[in-house]
């Protein structure tokens, strides 16, 4: 028996161009939701490039199964390029053969062929999860999502707190917004308020009469954020 892991990671290709991509995605969802919910976790493949070190640790922290729609093996190659070696590589077209031909890309027009294909692939993934769990010792339900790398869109964005007119308000994703704007070169100070407000309004409803209070609170919080992160930068 090898090391102990919290969960098996499953990464699907996105496969937008072909029905097999949709089947890969749907089958992974079925394993996560219904077949092995306690034992599995996922990550969006494009996050390896768009994300940061946390996302890139994924395959180093989880024994990983990749599910590709076609023989280009994007999920396998992308995972191995940016994260770590995968334990099992599955290919939808290998599993289904010609029976994928009757399937559609959109779930809006899903048909019997799609349903059958998704079940077949999902059951194959589940059996590979079981095999992997036996070989590397996966302890189900032993870890929360926060214990390791997992999909950014599977968990709430880290929030940031502001005080608006005496009331504490949590804004989902505020540290991400600050980080993004800092990287774009936004300087802290009262001049940053308008830009901060425009960006935060995308993700958080703000009544017009509260905009001034938000503008000031955001500028102040951003100044604090930049001061803290600059110290971290200097600290290496």
């Amino acid at each position, binding site marked *: 028996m090898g090391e102990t892991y919290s969960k098996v990671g499953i990464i699907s290709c996105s496969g937008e161009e072909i029905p097999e991509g949709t089947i890969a995605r749907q089958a992974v*969802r079925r394993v996560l939701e219904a077949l092995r919910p306690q034992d599995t976790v996922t990550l969006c493949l*494009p996050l390896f490039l768009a994300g940061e070190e946390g996302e890139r640790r994924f395959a180093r922290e989880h024994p990983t199964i990749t599910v590709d729609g076609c023989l280009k093996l*994007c999920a396998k190659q992308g995972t191995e390029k940016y994260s770590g070696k995968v334990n099992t590589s599955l290919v939808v077209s290998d599993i289904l053969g010609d029976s994928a031909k009757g399937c559609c890309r959109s*779930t809006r027009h899903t048909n019997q062929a799609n349903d059958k294909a998704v079940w077949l692939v999902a059951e194959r993934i589940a059996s590979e999860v079981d095999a992997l769990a036996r070989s590397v010792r996966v302890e189900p339900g032993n870890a929360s999502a926060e214990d390791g790398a997992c999909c*950014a*869109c599977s968990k709430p*964005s880290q929030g940031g707190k502001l005080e608006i007119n005496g009331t504490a308000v949590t804004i989902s994703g505020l540290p991400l917004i600050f980080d993004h704007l800092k990287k774009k070169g936004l300087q802290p100070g009262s001049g940053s308020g308008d830009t901060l407000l425009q960006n935060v309004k995308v993700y958080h409803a703000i009544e017009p009469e509260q905009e001034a209070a938000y503008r000031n609170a955001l500028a102040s919080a951003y100044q604090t954020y930049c001061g803290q992160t600059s110290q971290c930068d200097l600290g290496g």
Partner: protein
Amino acid sequence: MADHRQAKKTLVIPCSGVGKVHGLISREAVYHVTDKLLPGNADTACLALLVTGDDETKRKVQQTPCVTVDGCPKLCAFKNVELSGGKVAKGIRVYDVMKRHRGANFGTATALSDEGWTVVEELAAEAAQVARQAD
């Protein structure tokens, strides 16, 4: 009826996020554009192929105006197209349309509700409008 009178070939690329309903909405919005609104004048590309550096997909993205549709603040579609040397005519965020339907149940990452499909159609209309204007 599909309207592709003014459209030139545009790539519409979703993030296809697998963790939440937002990713499925982005993906379905793209299919609504390519299959219903602008068939023959809009196409999509596998984002995963772009991530792995596939030359043909990179070329396609570099030579064609792109519209990206992203489900979460990580903006995977937008960033990966830009990193590949592509030009994003517009980066659309699913949340911007969802917030017009505050409080609605949009479905799950596996299946959309009627309200989820409404968001899909609104996003697709926005993407198609950009595609019609893109060179």
